[in-house]
Each structure stands twice: as structure tokens, then as C-alpha cells.
């Protein structure tokens, strides 16, 4: 009974958890509920991915209404991979939340914060599991609206502005998505993604389909902050509560990236997307601009959270670069970077969160000599930083390796050079922090700083060890990602 309904439970459990959090009102109790939920959800995701690996795609008819009329929850390998990624990140990070959130959010609002976190989780899991295009919009907005509110809970008053700007940009993106779905529905008469994909070939006039594709691409790109649509992201990540930043940086953009993968490769198919219009060239150009533009801006940031946010924009460039290359190693690199970037950026933000917890801020000045006072935290920051740079033995290297192979398969040696060059820029911005932390004498507030509490240190180090683990043992990341890439390019439903 439970096994049959796992796809529904994946979404319903966090949704019910959110309601419970609001009802109990007490901060620590809400945290405990969120913790239990965050640990149940990945168990479901693991069960689902094992089922998929074993027996292929799971199709679940929501409420017993058979697709394509009813809403279908459809778990294939890509869905299961993203579900597992998002839920695991939540499970690792939530023990960290208790102290971090307590220090940044007032008593009365803490239960609401956890409710928002669970709603955000519901939305992202929903996006990844649903097979219905309009249902995906609803989940997209569930996760986005809760994200805006979470960002607005930041201590700094500029968090409000960041949330407002994000709301405006995010809503424009979501509305573009609705327009696209409207056009697709008018042309095909269905909302089910698999059904839609089958009917696209029969559409007589293809021009509306390309209009829909344009709306989709721009709308979803706004949500995952593809350069130059990234202007909302740096402020949002810089001023949100630290736990929210860490969680969102690891997961939020990934769910939106999943959606665009779904439409590009499963609904439209490679021939329709890349065959007629120069979308591949456009994606590669924008990705390169993100990799260089955002990395160079990151070098000049003094607020470390903001610096890492710009670095996120650059890293999204690597993901979309893989899609633009549109061959098996490229797509593998893009998909595996979803996971590798999630653990790497999660680890970095959790380490910075420890410094925010002790120092009250994450300005570069607060890092002076902190390597001597918080050795474990800074060591973690350095290791995760190496992964951002792409040093062999870390997760970041794996993604860049696949991207380089993909570029060589096209015969583009210059692209490999650019990949290496962009990594060198990340050496500068990570190195800047490491230099200040290790080679300056502690002064001022840093003198009294001590290592962050164990309940924060352990989740941070789990993430950090994961960046090393996924750099060495890649069967769960790159192995599955290459299987996904092969399926997507072959148009397997």
C-alpha cells in the first residue's frame, strides 16, 4: 500500500509537515518536525530511485484518474536523481538549522520559517516528480513564493528589497512559463508531458511551438538565474538567513534546471530544439559570459555570501554549457554538476554560516586570521573551495572533466582553454578568502571566535566530505548522470 503510493507521499509528507509546523507555533518543535520530515523524504526518494533502476519508469495516476486526463506523477531516472539530490541536501542541512536559525530569526517567526522551508521543499520535489506541465507551474510557484518569504526574513533590511526584486523577476518568469504552456495546450490539446511530446510531431504549423519554446526558455532561465537574467540572485543570497541561503543555493536553481531539461529533451526533443534555431550556440555563449562575467564580479565582492552568490551564477554557466554542447559527455557534465555544485556550494555556505554565527556577519574583514581560531571551519571552506576551482580529487573536477571531453568531441580546443581560464578566476576569489583567513593576524572580534557548535560543524563536514567522496567515487553521480544523458538524447520516454 505504502510502496504503491510513494510518488504521492514524496510530495504530501513535506506539505503536511509544513501545516504541522504552523500549528505547533514553537520554534524548536517546528524544527523537530521539519527534521523528521527531512529525514523521511530522502528515504522515499531512495526507494523510488531503486525502483526506477530496477524496473524502469514509474507512472502514478494521482487520485486514480488515468493519464493523460488526470495528473500523472512520473518518475524516471532524471526525476529520481533530482528528487534524491534535493531531499538529501535537506536531510543533511536540517540539523544545522536549529542554532543558525535561532541566532538570526526572532522567536515568533521561527515556526513560520520552518513551514516555509518545508513548503519550498514540497514545491521543488513536486516540480521534479510531476508529469503534468501545468501542475509543474503550480509547484514552481509554491516553491518560489515560499522562497521570497524566506529571503525576506533575513536580518538586514536589504533582505526585503532583495525579496521584492526576486518576486518581480520570478513572477515574470513564471508568467512566461504559463504563456508557453497555454500555447502548447492550444496546439496539442494536452497538458501531460509525455502525451504532449507525442503530439508535437502532428502539429501542422510549427511557428507557435517555437514561440512557446522561447517563452519557456526565457521564463525558466529567469528562475534559475541564467546570465544575464541573474540580477535577483546575488542580493537574495547575500541577505537571506544563512540557512536559507545554503539550502536555496544547493537546491532551488536545480529544480528549475530540471524543468528546462525536461522540456528541451523529453517534450520537444533534441531535433526540434537544437536542429532549427541556434539555441545550442546561444546557450554556449550565455554560459561562457556567466562563467567569466560572474566570476570576475565575484573577485571584487567583500561580502563573502555575495561573492559565493556570484560564483553560483558562474557555476550555473557550467551546467547550461553542458546542455548547449548537447552530446552525451556534455549533458553528463551538466547533470552531474547539478549534484556536484549542490554539495560544493552547500558546503561553502554552511562553512560561511558558521562564521556568520560567531561573528554576526561574513565580511572579508571578519575572516582575518580566522583560520587560527576556527581551523575546522576554514579547512572545510578551503576544501570546498578547491572543488569550486575543479582540483582533481574533488567533485568539481568530475563535472569539468566531462565538459572538457564534450568540447573535444566537437573539436573545440578553445573551449577547453576557456574552461581552464574560468577556473583560474575562481582560484582568485577563493584564494583571496583563504589568504586573509590564514596569513593575517586575528584582530578585533576574531580574537574571541571559537569553532562553530558541533550540531553545525557535523552537517558542514558531511557536505565537505561529500565533495571529496563524489570526486573519487562517481558511480552514484556521474554513472547515473551518463545514463540520464544517454536516455535524454535518445528521447526515451
Amino acid at each position, binding site marked *: 500500500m505504502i510502496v504503491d503510493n510513494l510518488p504521492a507521499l514524496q510530495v504530501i509528507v513535506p506539505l503536511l509537515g509544513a501545516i504541522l509546523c504552523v500549528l505547533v507555533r514553537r520554534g524548536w518543535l517546528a524544527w523537530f518536525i521539519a527534521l523528521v520530515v527531512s529525514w523521511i523524504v530522502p528515504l522515499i526518494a531512495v526507494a523510488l530511485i531503486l525502483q526506477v533502476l530496477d524496473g524502469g519508469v514509474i507512472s502514478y495516476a494521482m487520485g486514480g484518474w488515468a493519464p493523460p486526463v488526470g495528473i500523472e506523477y512520473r518518475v524516471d531516472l532524471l526525476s529520481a536523481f533530482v528528487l534524491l539530490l534535493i531531499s538529501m541536501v535537506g536531510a543533511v542541512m536540517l540539523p544545522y538549522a536549529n542554532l543558525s536559525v535561532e541566532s538570526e530569526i526572532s522567536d515568533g517567526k521561527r515556526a513560520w520559517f520552518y513551514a516555509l522551508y518545508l513548503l519550498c521543499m514540497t514545491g521543488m520535489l513536486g516540480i521534479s516528480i510531476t508529469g503534468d506541465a501545468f501542475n509543474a507551474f503550480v509547484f514552481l510557484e509554491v516553491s518560489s513564493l515560499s522562497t521570497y518569504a524566506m529571503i525576506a526574513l533575513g536580518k538586514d*533590511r*536589504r533582505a*526585503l*528589497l532583495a525579496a521584492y526584486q526576486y518576486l518581480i523577476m520570478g513572477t*515574470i518568469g513564471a508568467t512566461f512559463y*504559463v*504563456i508557453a504552456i497555454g500555447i502548447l495546450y492550444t496546439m496539442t490539446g494536452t497538458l501531460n508531458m509525455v502525451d504532449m511530446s507525442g503530439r508535437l510531431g502532428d502539429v501542422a504549423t510549427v511557428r507557435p511551438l517555437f514561440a512557446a519554446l522561447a517563452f519557456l526558455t526565457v521564463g525558466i532561465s529567469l528562475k534559475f538565474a541564467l546570465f544575464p537574467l541573474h540580477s535577483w540572485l546575488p542580493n537574495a543570497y547575500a541577505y537571506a538567513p544563512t540557512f536559507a541561503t545554503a539550502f536555496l543555493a544547493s537546491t532551488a536553481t536545480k529544480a528549475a534546471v530540471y524543468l528546462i531539461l525536461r522540456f528541451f529533451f523529453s517534450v520537444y526533443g533534441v531535433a526540434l530544439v537544437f536542429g532549427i534555431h541556434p539555441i545550442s550556440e546561444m546557450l554556449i555563449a550565455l554560459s561562457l559570459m556567466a562563467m567569466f562575467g560572474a566570476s570576475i564580479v565575484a573577485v571584487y565582492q567583500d561580502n563573502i555570501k555575495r561573492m559565493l552568490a556570484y560564483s553560483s551564477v558562474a557555476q550555473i554557466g557550467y551546467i547550461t554549457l553542458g546542455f548547449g554542447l548537447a552530446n552525451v559527455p556534455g549533458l553528463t557534465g551538466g547533470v552531474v554538476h547539478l549534484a556536484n555544485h549542490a554539495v560544493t556550494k552547500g558546503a561553502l555556505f554552511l562553512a560561511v554560516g558558521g562564521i556568520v554565527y560567531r561573528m554576526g556577519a561574513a565580511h572579508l574583514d571578519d575572516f582575518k586570521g580566522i583560520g587560527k581560531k576556527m581551523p575546522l571551519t576554514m579547512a572545510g571552506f578551503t576544501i570546498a573551495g578547491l572543488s569550486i576551482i575543479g582540483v582533481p580529487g574533488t567533485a568539481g573536477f568530475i563535472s569539468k572533466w566531462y565538459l572538457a571531453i564534450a568540447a573535444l568531441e566537437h573539436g573545440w580546443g578553445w573551449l577547453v582553454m576557456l574552461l581552464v581560464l574560468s577556473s583560474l578566476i575562481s582560484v582568485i576569489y577563493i584564494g583571496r578568502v583563504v589568504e586573509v583567513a590564514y596569513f593575517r593576524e586575528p584582530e578585533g572580534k576574531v580574537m574571541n571566535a571559537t569553532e562553530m557548535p558541533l550540531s553545525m560543524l557535523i552537517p558542514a563536514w558531511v557536505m565537505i566530505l561529500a565533495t571529496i567522496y563524489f570526486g573519487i567515487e562517481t558511480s552514484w553521480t556521474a554513472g547515473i548522470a551518463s545514463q540520464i544523458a544517454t536516455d535524454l538524447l535518445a528521447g526515451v520516454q
Partner: protein
Amino acid sequence: MAALQELVNHYNHWIAVFLMVAGLYVVVARGNMVKKLVGLSLFQTSVYLIYLTPGKIIGGTAPILSDEFTVYSNPLPHVLILTAIVVGIATIALGLALVVRINEAFGSIEEDEIFEKDVEA
């Protein structure tokens, strides 16, 4: 003449597109945060019209299972748009709530005045 006929036949689409562009223009051009949200709301509402237009058949009834009625309007766009309206309301409500908080924190809801107070923002 045929072109004019074409134009008139699709008047509902022209209205929707006009509203859409007008809404988006307000979002971009206005510095007042409440006006921006009004523009955003206009933009979203225009999309509802785009959905509803192809669902209507002239002379069609509501979808009732009966031998008397054979031509009926498609109910699905209406259902979708009901959902979209709910999402839209939630978005605007949250946006306005943020504006209230911004007004309390900065003492203004004009973007340029706020940016003067906070250079980094």
C-alpha cells in the same frame, strides 16, 4: 480588406497582447513599488485572457452530459485559470506585504529614494 477582417476577427488576442505589454511596461518603467505590482497583476491577468479565448465556442454550452447539447465549451482552460488566479492573488498579496515592510524599514516605496539610502542595495 481581408487583412482588416483578420485584425477584427482576432480582436480578443489584440486586447490580451496590449494588456500584456502594458503591464510589463509598467513593471519596467515605474519606480513606485505598488505601481510595479499593479503592472505585474495586469501582466498576469492578460495571460488568463489568452487561455480563456480558445476555450470558448460561440453557441456552445457548459459541458453537460445530455443528448440535447452537442456543442460545448472546453472547461479545462477555466479550471487552469482558476488555479492561476489563486497563484496570482498569493503573489500580489505577498508582494504588497513586502512593500509594507519596506515602507516601515526605509520610510519610502520609491525605488530611487531607497537606493539613495542604501548604495549597496
